């Protein structure tokens, strides 16, 4: 099943996929454009992975100060960075390199502590698409990628759907891609994850308890390019969803 959370008619609703767009839990069928899309579940701790596709590591290797990696590069994002499908993300005036990152987001369904790889997938509730924006102009070499790069308002796009894990036979064989204004700029496949989903759950739950609603953004493949004001950025993963975002200028936010 594919579920969403949307705002419509003065309330927030659980909603489901429908041939005409979306059906609210109360029965109303609406077009995709008629509702405001929210992140599709109550989001807990947001964990993101850097450098988790080999081709992307190569892409960034020129600017990395230290390239050796003895454990997954995991960092956290705050909930104030979250937005849903069909929303806007601000590109500050004067920055040179702001880019999207299309990522498979793994949503935890049950408490996980010291979980071994073999049992890890039992703790997955489902999947959604994430677009994990970064503005590289603000990179500093302290707790890199620092939050000024990664934790900006509207910088974590999630949705449209939470797809039940049972409906995804193999989460490690999903083609993913990004289109900017309809042109494919990034392509990959989740089979190329350096640290795969069960290994990530084993690693993270080895030092912290994961709870239902926590989400792991599993990293992005090669092909991140600069986006500009007015661009429509579509991050999509086959079988999971097609997540649309638009880049807007400071003026939209009164800046």
């Amino acid at each position: 099943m594919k579920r969403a959370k949307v705002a419509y008619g003065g309330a927030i609703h659980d909603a489901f996929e429908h041939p005409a767009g979306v059906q609210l839990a109360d029965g109303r069928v609406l077009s995709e454009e008629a509702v405001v899309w929210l992140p599709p579940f109550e989001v807990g701790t947001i964990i993101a992975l850097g450098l988790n596709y080999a081709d992307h590591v190569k892409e960034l290797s020129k600017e990395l100060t230290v390239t050796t990696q003895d454990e997954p590069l995991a960092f956290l994002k705050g909930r104030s960075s979250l937005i849903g499908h069909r929303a806007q993300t601000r590109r500050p005036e004067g920055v040179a390199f702001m880019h999207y990152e299309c990522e498979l987001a793994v949503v935890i369904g049950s408490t996980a502590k010291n979980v071994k790889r073999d049992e890890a997938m039992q703790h997955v509730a489902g999947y959604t698409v994430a677009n994990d924006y970064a503005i590289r102009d603000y990179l500093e070499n302290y707790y890199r990628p620092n939050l000024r790069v990664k934790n900006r308002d509207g910088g974590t796009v999630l949705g449209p759907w939470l797809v039940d894990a049972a409906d995804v036979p193999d989460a490690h064989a999903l083609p993913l891609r990004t289109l900017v204004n309809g042109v494919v700029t990034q392509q990959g496949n989740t089979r190329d994850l350096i640290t795969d989903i069960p290994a990530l759950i084993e690693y993270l739950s080895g030092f912290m308890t994961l709870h239902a609603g926590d989400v792991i953004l599993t990293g992005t493949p090669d092909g991140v390019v600069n986006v500009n004001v007015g661009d429509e950025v579509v991050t999509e993963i086959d079988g999971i969803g097609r997540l649309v975002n638009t880049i807007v200028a400071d003026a939209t936010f009164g800046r």
Partner: protein
Amino acid sequence: MMSNIFQPPVGATVYGTLLNHREALAALGDQVHVAPYKAPPKAPILYIKPRNTWARSGDAVLVPSDAAELQMGATLGLVIARTACKVSAAEALDHVAGFVVMNDISVPHESFYRPSMRFKCRDGSCPMGAYVSRDAVANPDALAVTVKIDGEVVQHTDTGGRVRSVAQLLADVTEFMTLNPGDVLSIGVAAHAPLAHAGQRVTITIEGVGQLENVLLAEELV
């Protein structure tokens, strides 16, 4: 309002600030100019203490089997009252509901190059409390901070000496991200944060805010 019990509301985010204490930054010396850092920090460097780290005064802090000692990061937390987006330093404190004593506990680590979840995000590694409302504190940049281990003072510092004062930190952080009601932002841990091991009792007192006390227990005994 004054309370020994403090817990961030559901959905809040607790942020820590790295190297905001001038002496802590100075302790890195010339390292800040060479790889991997290459330059001193410019904007505030933040990190997140996720919900699995939240604990209260009186809760046991578990010392993981792979760490002999933990670093006790006594600091002041600013609890946000209302949405703070691009606030000026002059109006920053209007967005603060109150102040909380925090122990931002870390597994000791040398490098600040990568965000170190394995060192900063252990379960129960962010005890918080006591809490006072903003009007109870005249100047949050000049509060004495005392850390005792088993009753003996091991660190005596204060909330001043920061690269960014409370108001300036709020201004510079909210320039690039919004803080929401219930979020907590720490002013950063002072230099020479003391170490403690299983079996010890850690008491942090911040003048005018209150006291936070926790006992460390070996994880394998629990």
